[in-house]
């Protein structure tokens, strides 16, 4: 009696996740691999086996290369700039002694994280507007610019980085704050007695002890940045020209604008491989650094 009740409970509990797993994850992964070896146009419906030729084409595809370089630029820009700003903000936040004011600051920093990406992208598109936009106006007050921002091939990626940074910063700050809270005060007191400067404290106490948080921020941030899509779609549609194409945007274009599902699947698999290798290398590098 008790046995059947237990079995029934486990079955009911896991039925939905298992069906979901098979139908919406495992099957698509396999089907996508299959498509990547074939030519399949959405409208014709005809599947022709191509062997590796889709993959070979990917490596000779200039647009793929543009998308890849843009994505790397975007990810590194976001990662490097974002981590320092977020860390600075987190440390500033922790140095606020009045708890109520601290909460208010935290709320302010976190609000952008709950605004929608589409809304964020459109708001910044308006602010980046070259002739009427407020950013060029503010910069002109300190004698900078005017910049062409989204209408310039060389300024469009920095503009997207700034927009993304604004939205993601709050999340990173909260993570760093949790990491900072885990560092025992005693370390700071001890190093102060030894006469360490602020910078030495940061370099030898904060930074090494914060590394789990930093690693997490970097790994998740990179995985998200490598999949940038919404900002690019909303702000410039990959433009001007193709100068803001990212990998996911390119897959989207190929699959859903040109209806070329086979080739797009091959690109998607290469993207997957890149994300996988990047995360793996990162974790390995970090582990060596940490445990060495």
């Amino acid at each position, binding site marked *: 009696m008790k046995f059947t009740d237990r079995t029934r*409970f486990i079955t009911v509990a896991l039925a939905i996740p298992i069906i979901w797993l098979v139908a919406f994850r495992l099957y698509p992964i396999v089907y996508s691999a299959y498509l990547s070896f074939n030519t399949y146009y959405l409208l014709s419906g005809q599947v022709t086996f191509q062997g590796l030729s889709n993959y070979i084409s990917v490596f000779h595809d200039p647009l793929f290369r543009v998308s890849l370089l843009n994505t790397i630029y975007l990810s590194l820009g976001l990662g490097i700039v974002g981590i320092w700003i977020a860390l600075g903000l987190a440390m500033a936040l922790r140095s606020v002694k009045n708890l109520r004011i601290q909460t208010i600051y935290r709320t302010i920093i976190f609000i952008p994280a709950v605004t929608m990406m589409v809304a964020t992208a459109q*708001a910044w598109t308006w602010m980046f507007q070259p002739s009427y936009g407020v950013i060029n106006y503010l910069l002109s007050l300190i004698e900078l610019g005017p910049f062409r921002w989204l209408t310039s091939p060389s300024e469009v990626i920095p503009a997207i980085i700034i927009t993304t940074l604004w939205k993601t910063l709050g999340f990173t700050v909260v993570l760093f704050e949790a990491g900072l809270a885990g560092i025992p005060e005693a370390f700071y007191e001890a190093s102060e007695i030894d006469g360490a400067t602020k910078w030495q404290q940061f370099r030898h106490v904060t930074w090494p002890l914060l590394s789990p948080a930093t690693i997490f921020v970097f790994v998740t941030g990179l995985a998200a940045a490598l999949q940038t899509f919404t900002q690019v779609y*909303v702000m410039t549609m990959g433009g001007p020209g193709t100068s803001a194409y990212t990998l996911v945007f390119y897959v989207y274009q190929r699959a859903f604008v040109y209806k070329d599902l086979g080739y797009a699947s091959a690109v998607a698999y290469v993207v997957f491989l890149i994300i996988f290798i990047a995360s793996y290398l990162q974790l390995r590098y970090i582990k060596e650094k940490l445990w060495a």
Partner: protein
Amino acid sequence: MLFPIFWVLSTSLKPYAEIFEYPPKFIPEHPTLANYGTVLFGWWSPGLVMTEIPLGIWFINTAFISISVTACTLFTSLISGYVFAKFRFKGRDALFTVILANMMIPFVVIMIPLYVLVTNMGWANTYQALIVPSVVSPFGIFMMRQFCKGIPDDYIDAARLEGSSEFTVFWRIIFPMCKTPLAALAAFTFTWQWDDFLWPLLVISSTQMRTLSLGVAVFFPFYGTIYLYAILMAAIVLFIMPVIIFFLIAQKYFVTGFVLSGLKA
């Protein structure tokens, strides 16, 4: 950090002519609610061709989808997280590993077959296309499993000895104990769902079925049409306010949700 939000608000209150003023004014000289009228009730506006923006319908669509997905995710995450934490059965660890491994799969790899699958089932332009593929969250299962592991077995065994069925144990003992992480997971899932863009873009083409993200992105053309910006900013204010208000009320759960997601993954 708040300047962009202030700027959106300020632009949304400007009459048509003030959009083109340079240098721009931070506070509108002649503030007006006309832009909100255009967005909500289809009031006529200079330079605007379309008459109606079904923002209300998009709002209902988005709310319905986000709430459904959140409810389903909470249920599947809690019940299977609990089973993975407290029951021993054959294949448990293998299954759990496979589910966890899904957190590593980027959406770009599965979006094409998922699109083919969903359209072949005739689900294009339906709610289920947006809800069903998201009813399970590997991250949610992982999070709830970690939490359930911390619940002492004694509670569960005591209830079993009293003759309670497994469902009763789950509902009366486990569920009440998990309310805090569930709230955090709910805040996380809800915001994420409210924000989702790429998947609705693929499976929704009819105006009536759009979500807010999709509607606001597609209805307003890209840069270059400056005269629309005041109206667009009014739409954005209406778009982001519900989540910001929700966030201000339930702030505690948002922040713990993000931190939990951070420290445990």
